[in-house]
């Protein structure tokens, strides 16, 4: 039977090293199948998170051959088998053990975001075309892969100033809900640090739900902030008025 060689990170907060395992390949196999095979046969205490095995829960994120992926949706036949397949934990989050990382920071950020607040007296009529966009955002399975690749978090570790793409998607879902009454733009600017995003689109590229994070969520949110706080028309008006004042 054909075999694949896996090189997995084994270790914890204190450090670790790669370990190599040989896994028999079955048709249609995904990387998570291989990890669970290793766990059941070769390394009983290998730490891995997973639940649905079908791309629905966002538990099984890791870096496969250096690329952030859902391991349950990464087919072995999409990877070159001549060299070892490397699987590492998400880099942007602290390792707990092996492939399991501490993602609790995300839950703390989420808690800061003011929830949905319906307009008083709402009639609860909404039309499909008005909810399509928000439904795109609500597809998010919280795999945190976008958080993992965003350089603001991954390279610059700005966890205090920056909420990350996942939470811009969440805010966008709230802001664009047809019946929501709250504004979160000031918070986006001041607390969630959306200004630090320089639209590299790395987040969009890795999103397994194919959410257009930058084009549909981040950019429109940035535009709202501009409209609200730095509206060029308003600024122009102010300037002209100022000039007028100078003249008179």
């Amino acid at each position, binding site marked *: 039977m054909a075999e694949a060689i896996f090189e997995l990170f084994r270790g*914890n907060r204190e450090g670790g090293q790669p370990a190599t395992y040989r896994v028999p390949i*079955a*048709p*249609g*196999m*995904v990387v998570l*199948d291989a990890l669970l095979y290793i*766990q*059941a*046969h070769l390394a*009983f*205490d*290998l*730490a*891995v*998170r*997973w*639940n*649905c*095995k*079908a*791309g*629905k*829960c*966002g*538990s099984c994120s890791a870096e496969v051959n250096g690329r952030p992926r859902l391991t349950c*949706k990464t*087919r072995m036949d999409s990877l070159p088998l001549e060299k070892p397949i490397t699987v590492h934990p998400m880099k942007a989050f602290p390792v*707990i*053990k*092996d492939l*399991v990382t*501490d*993602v609790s920071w995300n*839950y703390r950020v*989420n*808690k800061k975001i003011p*929830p*949905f607040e*319906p307009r008083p007296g709402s009639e*609860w*009529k*909404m*039309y*499909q075309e008005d*909810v399509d966009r*928000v*439904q795109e955002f*609500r*597809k998010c*399975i*919280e795999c945190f892969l976008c958080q993992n690749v965003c350089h603001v978090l991954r390279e610059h570790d700005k966890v205090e100033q920056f909420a990350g793409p996942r939470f811009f998607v969440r805010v966008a879902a*709230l802001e664009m*809900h047809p019946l*929501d009454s709250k504004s979160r733009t000031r918070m986006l600017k001041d607390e969630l640090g959306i200004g630090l995003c320089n639209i590299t689109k790395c987040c969009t590229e890795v999103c397994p739900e194919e959410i257009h994070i930058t084009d549909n969520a981040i950019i429109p949110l940035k535009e709202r902030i501009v409209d609200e706080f730095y509206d060029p028309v308003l600024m122009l008006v102010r300037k002209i008025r100022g000039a007028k004042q100078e003249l008179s």
Partner: protein
Amino acid sequence: MTTEYEIHDHDVLIIGAGGAGLRAALGALSQGAKVGVVCKSLLGKAHTVMAEGGIAAAMANVDPADDWRTHFRDTMRGGKLLNNWRMAQIHAHEAPDRVRELEQWGALFDRTPDGQILQRAFGGHTFRRLCHVGDRTGLEMIRTLQDRGVQLGIDVYMECTITRLLKDGDRVAGAFGYWREQGRFALFRAKSIVIATGGIGKAWKITSNSWEYTGDGMALAYDAGAELMDMEFVQFHPTGMVWPPGVQGILVTEAVRGEGGVLRNKLGKRFMEQYDPKKMELSTRDVVARAIYTEVREGRGTEHAGAYLDISQKPADYVKKKLPSMYHQFKELADVDITKGPMEVGPTCHYMMGGIRVDAETAKSSVRGLFAAGEAAAGLHGANRLGGNSLSDLLVFGHRAGLAAAEHAKAVRATPIDSAQVAEAAREILAPFERKAGESPYTIHRDLQETMQSLVGIFRDQADLIRALEDLEKLKDRAEHVSVEGSRLFNPAWHLTQDLRSMLTVSEAVTRSALARQESRGAHSRIDYPGLDAVWGTKNSVVVRKGDTMTLHQSPVPEMPSDLRQLVAEEK
């Protein structure tokens, strides 16, 4: 190894953070209780997140003739009248309000042209009744509940497994368990406890269920003296994936058939004509699962021993819009484009109708202070659950359990914890580390799955069930000698030793109940007793612990008032 533990105090402790647990938390919170929620996975990853097809509620947005009466009748008939009628009535009554509430908390369902919540057809439902969001309804539901719960201030203890309920005399006093990450112990003191731990499917080999579904809550309740009911009724969903091997068992939502998908055998014949010509593909799950199984057994199965399920006659855009996750699932995992050709599907272990026996109004169990809701509880679905009736069950009875648990907590004082029970629970958790050179839990789990799959599956008979009980005895013995290596830091082998205990308990309860019931009803099919039996139709199976042995008795099915009896009998 250290047996120290941290202590947390709550009025109401909820074990499980799926739809039932989170809805219960919101219910209890609304009464001013201090609420804690414990779960094995990260928050938002419970099984509820995977639910696809929808929530059943007679809102009558699409079919104006629908009402609670029809929903009630469908549920009772689907359950082959073994349901607790009062639960079915409450459920049908309250589901629409619970769905509207979700919308008011921010959930966004698919819409009708006039701006209401859209509803789709599903097996066994007379009318188009399932409120849905494409095929990711569960995700919408769990996010809505979780965000609201977190905002309103529930304490969430995620990646923490409860292994024991602690008692003070006849009432619950708390729960004990360990943090999966660091392996440390935690003690939760509470006046009321709600079990919302979901199902047991991981005891079977081919299953749509995740590693979490090991029946912990039922085993916890059983060990604490509560009654388990209807344990023979395990639902095999007719359509799981059958190929490639790694995805075997993964669910193919019934929404595919709801949206018009047809089933064919390898000869191209729509075989449901033979099994249920009236309802065809939208017959109840027990019927469709047996039909596919029979086609395969009689040599008319597909290449990978399944049936074809085809939705490609619908426009490709429509399929992608209404079934996006099925489209991706098949494209990415099986190289099949479902807008162009058929899927291959076969039965997969999916849902547990049985569970903790509860009171219909309050969800309380037979142990004082202990409540249960969702898949972990029994009664609503009888011998077979209709699709979509689980998500509504979670909301309706989660809510009621939360209210009743908070009320109970107000009426009683906190009770002291018995340190001997705690020490015993700690010893039990650590035992696999103390033993040397024992068996690995993975091989025991694999053998358990083989036994349940081959001997306690869709079709059962006496000889198989007796053999299964013998196997289970041996497996229990092996599990007593299981050992693990390594540290307590996120150690899945060690975690599995704990889950294995629960699986063995519930597997035995299923097998004993199945052996006793000498008839075929709903999801329970006995080859040696192929028909319905009128006398068995008046009995629920009840399992209770007496000392160290599992005992089984029958209890009369609660009798329906005559108006409801008439309603169920009406021809429609």
